């Protein structure tokens, strides 16, 4: 299957969800998302870092320097309370949207119209 580009506006909520599993640094986030989508999602790294910075400003995530397993210094991102709230709200929104989308698109055409 082809890789899908991440839809505009959804990267933030994806990252937040990822971080709900615990603090990660940038590469970890990318890796996790790829694994979760079975390599279905195509994430631009640049976009990811932009998103991370953006969310840091908005207070959804907090950044702190830490050490990786290989004892390398890395910037770890942590989900804040505000981020959690935002994640919950956005998740609900997207779910509803996806439901409505599915409902409309899977409607059977009435007889006599489109095949």
């Amino acid at each position, binding site marked *: 299957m082809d890789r899908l580009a991440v839809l505009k506006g959804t990267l933030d909520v994806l990252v937040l969800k990822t971080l709900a599993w615990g603090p990660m*640094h*940038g*590469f970890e986030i*990318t*890796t996790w998302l790829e694994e979760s989508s079975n390599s279905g999602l195509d994430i*631009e*790294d*640049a*976009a990811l*870092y*932009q998103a991370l*910075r*953006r969310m840091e*400003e908005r207070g959804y995530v907090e950044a702190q*320097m830490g050490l990786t397993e290989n004892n*390398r*210094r*890395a*910037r770890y991102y942590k989900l804040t309370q505000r981020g959690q709230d935002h994640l919950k709200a956005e998740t609900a929104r997207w779910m509803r949207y996806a439901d409505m989308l599915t409902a409309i698109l899977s409607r059977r055409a009435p007889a006599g119209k489109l095949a």
Partner: protein
Amino acid sequence: MTEKQPPIAKGIRPGIRRLLGLDVAYKDRIAAELEDELQMHLELRAEQMRNMGMSEERAMQQARARYGPIDQATMEIRQHAARTEQITRRRLTVDSLIQDTRFAFRTLARSKSWTIIAVLTLALGIGANTAVFSIVNDLLLDPFKYPNSNRLVLISRSNERSHLQTAPTMDQVRAFRTARSLEGLEGVGSRKLTLDTNGDPVPAHVGIVSATFARFSGARVLLGRFVLPTDERADATPVVILSNHIWQARFGGARDVIGKTLKIEGKQFTVAGVLNDGVRIPSYNHDPVDVWIPISANDQLGGPAIARLTKGATLDAARAELNALARNAEGVDITAKDLAFDIVVIEPGSQQQTRTSIFMIAGAVCLLLLIACANVAHLLLARGAARERELSIRAALGAGRGRIVRQLVTESLILSLAGCAAGIVMGQLSLRAIVVLRPENLSELANVQIDARVLTATVALSVMSGIAFGLVAAFSGKNGRSFEALRASAGTTVDRSRNRLRSMLVITENALSVVLLIGAVLWIRTVTNLYQIEPGFDATNVYAMSYDLPTGRYDSKESWQSYADRLVTEARRIRGVDEATIAANAPSRTGIMIGNWVGEGGKILKSDAAPTLTATNVVSSDYFKILRMRLISGHVFDDNIAKNREVIVSRSMARQIWSDTNVVGRRLRMAGQTNAHADSILWNVVAGVAPDAALLSLTDKGATPGIYYPMSNSPDRHQTLMVRVRGTVPTAAFRRLFLSIDPSMSPPEISSVTDLLLRSVTTQRFLMALLTIFATLAVALSAIGLYGVITYMVSQSSREIGVRVALGAERLDVIRLVLQKGVVLSAIGLAIGLIASLWGARLLDHTLYGVSRTDPLSYLIGASLLLLIAIAACVAPTVRAVRIDPMLAMRSE
């Protein structure tokens, strides 16, 4: 990143760190971090690729490819970071300012009494300044409140020799209208005339102006129109423009008032419009104008013309141009010396003497403000010493120098603004008080308000001084720069720079107070002298009523004479009136003549240095009797026979012309009249010599030659009824008297001659009172300042004193020690102040009377007062010093 920070800053939040200036450049850090992060991402990606079996090279390639537009992203992130930093910084600044302000309020509220004293002191200085400068602005700088008032000038003629000023003629005014250096010229006159709107004539202030006056003065026409050029013609229907208050009061504000008629001095005028209130014109009193009438073509102007200089034109240029135009207009050879006239272009404002005095008061109030500021600085320094500890702790916790300075400045700013607000309230109250208590001469003060400009200047001044104080407080003393203050024994470190500053402040305060004190004493003595002047006659119980017989009904000498005769006869019948007489004027209101006198067989009475003024009056025989003036030689006039140009001269005049007082029968005339009449008509014969008296004003007694003409020979339209009464003056009876003789004339005011004499003095007295108040306040403030300093010094040296006492010092020695400090400080201030006074006293020259500006007695009084008060201020600290228990002193810190 953390290695770059000083250890002490590690635990502090990044945001605060940034603000405290302890942080390395944020932007660079962001960039470096980002690079690190992305670099690591790249490497990890490459590693991932390698693990999947790619070669090193290919792995890197792939990794990079996966990046996406990384450079652009980096740039965007960097820009974003920069913007964020700005916003954060701004927000933090605002936050910290709010924090500073809140903290400042708390600190100030904690030491309530200190704050109240500081605010009150500032309020005092600022309030006094606001009030006085509003007055200065109102009287001197912008007396008329016309638009573009900084280019206003008054134009009058001045006799080169007598320096008297008279109004320009209409010919000249017409000529001046073409002048390039003027961009507006209005003839303006003012008279008190009888106004009759409903059968009840009352005195009214009439403004006589040219047609374009409304635009010139910025006045607004509320109804109808203003004067038109056509109204100025001799054949035009006389029109009158009402003022708003007359329109409301007499016509009920009815809009159909246009076309109604009223009478002024018996002559009919038609109402053509209404003008707004508050329009001022130069006049002798500064009452509001009630009605406006046009200058008719033949009118003499009542006073100087007002004009506005064109932009860029100078006073000198205007003067030259106008004189050239006048020369052409007059067609007279004005190079002839005695007739030489000059066009004088001056800036409008009060008379010279009052002007100087008012500037003096302004200077005095500035000094007061300086003293108040010095006191506040004292207070701040005292507080600063107490807060050493607190500030040191803050510094140790990481507050940068800048932050601490900002904190202190914020405190001082709040203090100043509070003082400013309180001061403005005080100023407004003082102005109200001054308006109520103002002397008659300064009736123009009736409308003084706090001016917008003065207000702005006050606020700006407060802000600046607040910042200055804060800086002084911040940079004096160590303020946390040294950690010594944290030690328990903080009290022993005597802060030398602070002490020096305080000493200088005290010295300055004392010097300024001395200046004010001496000024006040000089003025008090002047006023006392003025009150003690002998006028040369006995004015007790003598009252005067001046009036003008209106045109239209009294137009001949006979009518004037018969009115006077009837009035004086009836007046003598009123109960309580002992004597009555008619003269042209009361003393100190007499007329003047300019010119030289030539006496037969004597010198020519003239002087090159001073103006040749002669005081004149027209009197009947009873005049001298009523004033108890006994003639030195000769006899009074005979009321019934108008002898050939008899005159009575004053003693000084006789002596100046003939060096003798026995000059009855001699003749004299005015010199320099170039008409060709025969001499005999012009000669006057001396009938008697009267003693010198205050004719023009109280201070003039004897100096100005005086000449009296007989009433029978030359009665005038302008008359004064003078009466000597017993007991209370029967005001109502006089009113009835005037109304009974001529009901259409409004009865004149009654003034006592003594009041008239003292009128010139009341201004001086008022200003003197102001100055005395300022001087008293100044001395009080200085005393407080001195008290504070000495107290502080005593507490500082308590240890030293304790040691000395323990070593055997006597009480007297301790007293001497403390007093010495205080007296030395005052003495230095005193010395400086004395020198400053001597130098500055020349500014007082025109305002003093009877005392020289270096009068030793005044200086002595001033100096002694200050020393006494200084010693008094030192008493309490001295007592405290004496009570110091040596044991306690040496033990405590």
